[in-house]
């Protein structure tokens, strides 16, 4: 008789939330990011997605005492920015930790250029996760910023086969992330880009990934990149938008699409 996973007690599902470093955003998310599941932050460029990721990593250290993993896929990781945010946060609250301590708790992964590489890198985290699990600073947050960069480009003339292969990568990646997050008790935050929605029969389908309603940013309708397959891997989808038209710097709004 094969023995599968053991029964979980519902009551034991209570886990601490990972703060985003802003009480308003945290309240919006019911306390912060939930562990064991995938939260995705979608938005066009300049909607401060990376800023939010870095802030969450800083606060994982300051409020939960947890380490973080930051997988950056868009070139050189913004380490200066991370340091700045750490300094500002440490100055604002009474803590024996220095900005250096905070930054030292973030394990940065770079040079991921395609889906397979990302999947391999995630699976290869297991020894690190196991190593820090017993310490006072186990990993509490894993960030992939962004998922779109290594996976968006399907090649010169993508057909059904390329789409299916990419979809398979999504499901494997989501499974690997959630399995690790579940076993080690950390939250997963993934950023994603947007695609413009063209009016026509495709528009209704685009909305199947946006909670049935149009998502607007800078006055135009968009849909999250990577399609319905990836959308089916996301537990919580957040949409960061520019409220004003024309992409002018102005108020940014965060929507809970589902979750």
């Amino acid at each position, binding site marked *: 008789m094969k023995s599968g996973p053991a*029964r979980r007690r519902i009551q034991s599902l209570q886990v601490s939330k990972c703060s985003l470093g802003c009480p308003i955003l945290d309240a919006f998310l019911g306390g912060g990011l939930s562990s064991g599941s995938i939260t995705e932050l979608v938005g066009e460029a300049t909607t401060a997605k990376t800023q939010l990721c870095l802030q969450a990593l800083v606060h994982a250290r300051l409020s939960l005492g947890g380490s973080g993993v930051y997988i950056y896929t868009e070139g050189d990781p913004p380490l200066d920015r991370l340091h700045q945010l750490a300094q500002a946060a440490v100055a604002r609250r009474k803590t024996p930790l220095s900005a250096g301590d905070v930054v030292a708790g973030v394990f940065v992964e770079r040079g991921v250029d395609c889906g397979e590489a990302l999947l391999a890198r995630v699976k290869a985290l297991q020894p690190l996760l196991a190593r820090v699990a017993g310490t006072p600073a186990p990993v509490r947050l894993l960030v992939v910023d962004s998922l779109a960069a290594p996976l968006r480009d399907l090649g010169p003339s993508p057909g059904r086969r390329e789409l299916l292969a990419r979809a398979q990568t999504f499901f494997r990646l989501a499974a690997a992330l959630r399995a690790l997050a*579940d076993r080690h008790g950390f939250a997963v935050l993934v950023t994603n880009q947007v695609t413009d929605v063209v009016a026509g*029969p495709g528009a209704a389908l685009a909305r*199947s990934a946006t909670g049935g309603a149009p998502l607007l940013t800078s006055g135009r309708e968009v849909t999250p990149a990577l399609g*319905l397959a990836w959308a089916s891997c996301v537990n919580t989808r957040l949409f960061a938008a520019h409220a004003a038209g024309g992409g002018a710097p102005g108020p940014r709004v965060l929507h809970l699409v589902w979750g």
Partner: protein
Amino acid sequence: MTSDVSSLPLCPTLRSKLSAAGFTSAAAVAQADPARLAADAAVTLEDAQRAQHAADARTRSGLAGALSAKALYDRERRSQRIITFCAGLDSILGGGVGLQQITEVCGGPGLGKTQLGMQLALDVQIPDCFGGLGGEALYVDAEGGLTLERLTQMADALAAHLRRVAAARAVARRAQAAAALTRERMFDAVHLYRVHDLAELLAVVDGLVATLAARPAIRLVVVDSIAFPFRQDHADLAARTRQLAQLGQSLMEVAVAHDVAVVLTNHVTTRPGEDGGAPPRLIPVLGDTWAHVATSRLMLYWEAGARRAFLYKSPSQPPASCEYLVTGEGIRGRRQPAKRGPEGECRGEAAKK
């Protein structure tokens, strides 16, 4: 003795609602499905049952139309459903999710497939004296969608609802049963298994027979979702098809042998539009072989910003669609505008036993 509805010993309002809905003879009332009767006449399920008892008594005394013991038993069995708390959904499903069958719920993300699974895992626990199954649920979570917060919200709402019903009309044991259904009890009655891949899913399903034999109180098995573990490996389609067929068969055997309802959630994908022809549309994943496995299939979709469900395969119900809501309390129906009631009350009450 006339067999007209107007002569049944019921309150006049109830009688006029029944006739207005087209049930003019006692025989029509006696032979109708209780949930259908309640929905069509816009009365509570309780009133519908009371009407049926009266109609039964009337028709039996006329010999013709007497219900045999077997017919009564079959009607009991068939009418044992797990309600969803949305009158529209319950109605199109024929009273709720049926036992001894596999009901597939497919749809895109954010529509509430997981919410529906969680709602059913609580509704199966509705005590006998409220017309429920008083059972437990086995929940296989393959996507990490079941959260303590959300289940707590839904459990609290269900408990509050039962207490209100118990207070509104004193029926033996109800107040006690409602009080006994605490959060703790409701959580203990959900047997949760978290699976991350196909191997783990298959292991849990393999162990189902033993688990259900050891816990006969379990009357519902939910798998959310059946799609996620299978979509991780496209490589060997033939193997996947075989595994799916086997899985379907195991689940069907378990459903019948242990008299449980099996509910599986499934994803959708875009089927490419034909060149110069039909536009692209959304179809369930897992292919044609899988399509034959489910006894009943419900497709959830968006229409003009509203959530709708379409029943497109069923052994007994015609194809039909309805709107449903995902609220702070769980799955609910849309309140009829004319009906004023306390927050959260809705037509769902009409179909609830």
